[in-house]
């Protein structure tokens, strides 16, 4: 019996075929501008960041503390109950070294990215952010895993109410 798929079809081309005009094509771009209202929870999260504070929400049913704060506890499917200010220190759950930007271009200086479990939030509740004063070797050897880190904030006058009000997290114990 024949191997399947039998004679799969399609006409491959190369990028150069577009440039040379061998393959007809057209171009357009999609542009859209969004203004997201943040609701009560993310709004307060960003206001907190402007003040140098990290807020979470506590569910009094399962006792989880979530960061970023949110209305719904997805474990209990009920409204979270209380605001909690968690620490700006935490431990590195996982970390990587990025040599590429969001559009897949190479970056000049590698960026170190991590998931950080914040102290004061429930175990396993992490946020995505950058690490600073950490070498790529500390990441590749996994020495940075489990280490305590602290947020390094922008000066108050430069904060805008954004996750980028934290410049990065840096180690506060020997790596």
């Amino acid at each position, binding site marked *: 019996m024949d191997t399947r798929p039998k004679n799969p079809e399609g006409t491959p081309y190369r990028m150069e075929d577009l440039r040379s005009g061998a393959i007809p094509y057209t171009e357009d771009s999609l542009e859209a501008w969004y203004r997201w209202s943040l609701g009560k929870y993310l709004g307060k999260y960003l206001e907190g960041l402007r003040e140098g504070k990290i807020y979470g929400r506590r569910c009094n049913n399962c006792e989880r503390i979530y960061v970023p704060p949110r209305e719904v506890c997805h474990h209990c499917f009920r409204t979270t109950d209380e605001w909690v200010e968690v620490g700006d220190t935490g431990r590195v759950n996982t970390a990587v070294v990025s040599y590429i930007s969001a559009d897949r271009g190479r970056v000049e200086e590698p960026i170190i990215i991590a998931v950080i479990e914040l102290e004061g939030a429930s175990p396993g509740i992490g946020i995505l952010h950058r690490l600073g004063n950490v070498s790529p070797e500390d990441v590749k050897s996994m020495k940075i895993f489990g280490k305590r880190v602290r947020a390094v904030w922008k000066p108050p006058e430069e904060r805008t109410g*954004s996750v980028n009000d934290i410049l990065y997290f840096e180690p506060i114990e020997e790596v």
Partner: protein
Amino acid sequence: MKMNIYRKNRVACVGAGLTLFRRRLMETSDELMWLAARQALDEAGLTIEDIDCIIFGTAPDNFDGIHMQSEALADGAGAVNKPYTRVYVGGGTGVFSVIAGWWHVASGLCDRVLVIAEEKMSHVQPHPQYLFHHIFDPVTEKPLGVNLIWIFALEMHRYMYKYGIKKEDIALVSVKNKRNALDHPSAQVAAKITVEDVLNSEVLVWPVQRLDISPVSDGAGALVLVSESEAKKLTDEPIWIDGVGWSLDTMYWTNRDLAFPVYLYYAGKMAYEMAGIENPRKEIDFAEVYDPFDYKELHHMEGLQLARKGEAPILTREGVTERDGDLPINPSGGLLGVGNPIAAAGIMKVAEVYWQLRGMAGKRQVKKDVVTGLAQAWGDLMQVGTVVVMRR
């Protein structure tokens, strides 16, 4: 065999079709769908007049740049003036579209369904990767300049850390799948490579390197699903879809256990219970698990209970997952070898299980006699698992 669900019809797959998978194909998306649909209908011995409804799958709208994608491609799907539905769960869409086809037939609503999926990623300039920037939360993550590969690298590194897994062992998956793909007529990046080639390839986001990842692809795939009574008219060798399962975890991926895919555990459990499977490691003869990254094949084997936690790299190193092994994984060549036109790649996996169970995989045919196979896909923000269990 026992079934733990009421269904009006047992559901059979009776035909499959694929296009070539390539980085760039000249055909438009609907032309690719037509090529795949025609091949699947021919294999089933049916025409579009015989089809009661069409299920369509594609991943994020933006690849084609038209924000009503299913309607725009209805002609190529053979869907004009028929019941037609698009389903979507990111990278899990290909297998999920088969699940949607299954419920149309299992419920008794339809007797003959065409399931079709396409992805044409090559439109997007300068690189399709950038579109994935827009699947992230615009408040908490996008401002950090997040790249899709970051989050997989973070997951891969956590998995390696937790179980003490070496990159050399993960690279074996890429070596195996690219080699398996040498025997797949649609394959885009089939190759004989070594572990050293993987470890020496461009570092994108450590620990992820170029050859750890599946390529950007164009392609389409289609399947024909029918009820038991129809199947018996068409073939002596129907392949049955006896279990389906799907599950989605929270969007807050940094709040999850990154070392174990819980969503897939639940999806697999649902499919196994439906199909009456109590011990997946013994009862599943081979599997097509979703492998856009090499570590994901291992991660998914564990989520599907085909290996214990941290055990999948060991099985791989011992050759258990090779085509002549005890538990062949991705005999097609997977996304790492055949290519990754996202939703169409999920169809490719189900098609491979179908062809293997019918003994039509030619040089790709696994050595052992196979009765039960599984296909799985994964997607959205690393949060969805979609599973089908098939039998001959």
